[in-house]
């Protein structure tokens, strides 16, 4: 049996998430292409709900969902075409290695971008980039006996509301997140490409079918609807939404692969910085009310995995060196 195609067009926001969870529960190998009618925020399985400003979300009537798969917290709106691939873990096409999973199944998305004249490539683990900008973020995971890939093609992107909806330790962090997101994330429109949504959908389907074989166009049937309904209670449970994520003792936000902003504040020590490719691109450390500039400049010179970072911090702030080291290293 080949893959099914659910080319769903516009869906209500809840269904855009429930559909692929249900298909995976039912082990229906498929490709889903769809858009959401309403804006919403989607947390990855392990993202802390504390990343969000729930007062703001309530005021603006923006709903939140926590998916069962990986990746970071994302803003989802109508100006994105979602794709979700559901494949059985025992399908010979489904690799063991997650890295290979992403490279294999993101290739049709890369090819779609290329067909619009964008020189796209995959930046491991799972970003699609061009000219140093992220143009598609993705996440994946195992649900029952299937692996699921989920991502979107951005037709347009405006991070303003998303940044407002996030909770930050201070306004400077918020401003930095906005600036980084604006400069490092781009949509098709950013490159002057304005295309019909139907055209993007058609090309995605064409490119995925070259990898998966002929796709059988089908509708969401009663069995799938029933499974979506039964998942609704579980996925909209407050405990699942608010308590599944992992809290960290520092705040970190991923802008793109190799661009993370972090902030740590405890007692008399505050650290704010930006981590790039195994290197700090920016760091500010305040200890006992004073900048520790010598420490900052030493850290900026080192590779994060060099093994020296911890020793350097130890020589300046010994009682918090382990904590600060973990913040800098991330993960």
């Amino acid at each position: 049996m080949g893959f099914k195609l659910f080319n769903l067009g516009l869906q209500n926001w809840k269904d855009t998430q429930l559909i692929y969870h249900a298909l995976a529960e039912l082990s229906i190998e498929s490709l889903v292409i769809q858009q959401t009618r309403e804006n919403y925020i989607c947390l990855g399985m392990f993202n802390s709900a504390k990343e969000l400003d729930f007062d703001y979300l309530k005021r603006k009537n923006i709903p939140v969902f926590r998916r069962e798969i990986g990746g970071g917290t994302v803003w989802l709106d109508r100006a994105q075409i979602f794709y979700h691939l559901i494949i059985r873990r025992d399908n010979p096409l489904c690799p063991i290695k997650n890295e290979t999973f992403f490279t294999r199944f993101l290739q049709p998305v890369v090819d779609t971008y290329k067909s619009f004249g964008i020189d796209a490539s995959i930046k491991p683990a799972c970003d699609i980039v061009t000219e140093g900008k992220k143009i598609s973020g993705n996440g994946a995971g195992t649900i029952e006996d299937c692996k699921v890939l989920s991502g979107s093609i951005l037709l347009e992107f405006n991070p303003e509301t998303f940044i407002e909806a996030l909770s930050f330790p201070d306004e400077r962090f918020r401003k930095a997140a906005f600036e980084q997101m604006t400069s490092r994330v781009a949509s098709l429109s950013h490159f002057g490409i304005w295309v019909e949504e139907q055209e993007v959908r058609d090309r995605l389907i064409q490119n995925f079918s070259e990898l998966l074989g002929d796709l059988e166009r089908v509708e969401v049937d009663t069995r799938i609807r029933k499974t979506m309904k039964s998942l609704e209670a579980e996925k909209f449970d407050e405990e699942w939404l608010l308590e599944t994520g992992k809290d960290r003792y520092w705040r970190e936000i991923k802008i793109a692969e190799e661009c993370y902003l972090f902030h740590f504040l405890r007692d008399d020590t505050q650290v704010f910085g930006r981590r790039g490719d195994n290197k700090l691109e920016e760091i500010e450390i305040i200890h006992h009310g004073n900048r520790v500039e010598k420490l900052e400049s030493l850290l900026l010179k080192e590779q994060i995995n060099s093994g020296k970072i911890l020793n350097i911090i130890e020589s300046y702030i010994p009682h918090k060196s382990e904590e600060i080291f973990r913040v800098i290293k991330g993960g």
Partner: protein
Amino acid sequence: MELKSADVLKVRELEFPLDRFYYRGKKSHLWVKMRDGITEVGMDAFLVHSTGYLNYISINTGEVKQGKGVGNFESAKFVSRIFSPINGKIIEVNQKALDNPRQINASPYTTWLFKIEPSNPQELEGDDFISSSIELKEWIEADLIELDGE
């Protein structure tokens, strides 16, 4: 059951202590060790090798069924399911490993993830468990070849 020796099986650069069992049901790669009637469960070297750096792990507690999900772990934006190797009850979770999952990358065999009070220890003799070093070697080699082919 042959896997009771203090030896370590080496397949390429990966090591597999022979003082425990290995669970391969649901395409898992978990080690299982009985200690005073309680089963310790952790990730084997193949899983750690093929997964890369672990960022998050969660484990549920309470009654568990063999082959059913008991938790998840995330590495590089991919959330994978952890399946219970046996029926029983999870009585303890290694909070230190959950707080610092990279401890498992550094030392997979000394870092257990959770402990199960088994309802039937005989389950370790089932087909989903590797019961000889020869079988273990064949299994790991086959999976490594599959990994190479990717």
